[in-house]
């Protein structure tokens, strides 16, 4: 016999407990999958596009009231990256040559801020970083996912 009766009872108890837990999760998951209303979808889109617009402004050198100093040279991100071209968000994470390590898009954004633009880097989870990321991803949204490509 592969298992003793004692061990079989223990396994069965664990299995029942797991099903109970899963059942709760399934119920929650089902609840979460209620059909979205058009208003909800519009609200989600509005939240995203608001961040895209803030990111667009920051990317084009308009930092008024944002509490950032993304450049001290007069250069804005868009002066080398019109339409967020050559930012290649679809290629991160990857080994980034200039940084000399495995890097995320946020790492590269901060590298550009600190090095070419001589500005002050952003906290990786800051609202401004998320907005820049939103604008860059949105501008490149149909690019083919190609992580790791140099």
């Amino acid at each position, binding site marked *: 016999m592969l298992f003793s009766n004692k061990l079989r009872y223990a396994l069965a108890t664990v299995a029942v407990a797991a099903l109970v837990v899963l059942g709760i999760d399934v119920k929650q998951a089902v609840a979460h999958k209620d059909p979205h209303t058009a208003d909800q979808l519009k609200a989600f889109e509005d939240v995203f596009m608001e961040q895209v617009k803030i990111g667009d*402004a920051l990317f084009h050198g308009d930092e008024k009231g944002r509490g950032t100093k993304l450049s001290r040279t007069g250069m804005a991100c868009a002066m080398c990256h019109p339409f967020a071209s050559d930012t290649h968000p679809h290629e991160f994470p990857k080994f980034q040559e200039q940084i000399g390590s495995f890097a995320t898009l946020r790492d590269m954004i901060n590298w550009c801020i600190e090095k070419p633009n001589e500005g002050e880097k952003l906290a990786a989870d800051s609202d401004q970083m998320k907005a820049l990321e939103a604008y860059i991803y949105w501008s490149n949204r149909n690019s083919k996912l190609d992580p790791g490509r140099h």
Partner: protein
Amino acid sequence: MNDRQIERPDPSTVLTRRSFINKSLLKGGAGVAAAGFFPVINTMDFAYGQGAQSFRFAWVSDTHLYPKDVNTRFVDKAVRAFKEVQAMSPAADFMIFGGDLAQLGDPVEINLGAELLKEVKIKKYFIPGEHDWYLDMGALWNKSFGAAPWTFDHKGVRIIGLDTISYAEDFWTSRKYSPKERMGHMATLDGTLGGAWSAVGEKQMRWLSSTLANWGKDKPVLIFTHTPLYEYYPAWNFWVRDWKAVQELLAPYGNVTNVHGHVHQPLYNEIGKMRSIGMLATSWPWPYAPEGVPALTRPMVRADPGDHFDGVGWGSLSGGNRVEAEYKMWRKTVFATAEVDSGTGDNRNQVLFPRVVDRL
């Protein structure tokens, strides 16, 4: 295929651009050499087979000077370019400044440029860029450097400088934009409010037509513009909106070369019998547009964004019986040898979308 499609530029024209190291600059520039770059001078040599003589001239454009208290990196590169032009031996016949001397048309920037340009003692000719123009609508530019268009004949070549800048539709009056706001929108390459601002315009085309009226159809013509005389990615204003009318006007002439700035990248194109050559900036390189790069262009290598002397400088164009482009920059080989290092091949999986706003 019609006759126009199979027309090519006159093969008797040989256009070369060469680079050489000036020894006098090397002697005085040990620190420069030690930093890994050399005082490269590039010129254009024109050799025409139909009665014209060979000659050499220099081209500098797109210096995009900021006031020195904002940054000096563009000043440093402009100074370097002007010193190298002046150090050419034998001296160039003349220098063309191809526009965008300033970044935001600020009198401080234009006056700084005028001061730096005093380094160049050879004859200088100027055409404006949009960055020079839209703060005061060209007032200080024209006062400082003279108005375009202009023309002169040199060693059998009719040489023409056009203004492709001052023809933007008025987007500022109804919106009550200040001159600074107007300039800011015009200075944003991927902005939309400026519209398709670059043009030759009907009046200037009449001038061009009359200027060429007494010139032989097979004789060489050299036209300088800030923006290219063909359609190249309109979304970034890399074009002249009435280029087709210009091409029609120039079609009877069999030996026309257009040299332009604005795009900050090597470009080569042929339309009918006219060739166009895009020059490097001294300030910074623009990326190639996601579509519309002329098929005849040999793309430059990806520039290192951490090195502001990379991707900029001068170039080299050479030809056998047709024009071939061979650029050199201050830092490294211009042309990529592998797709992965190419300024266009690098973007093979990139799909871009235009902005939805200019400014909040």
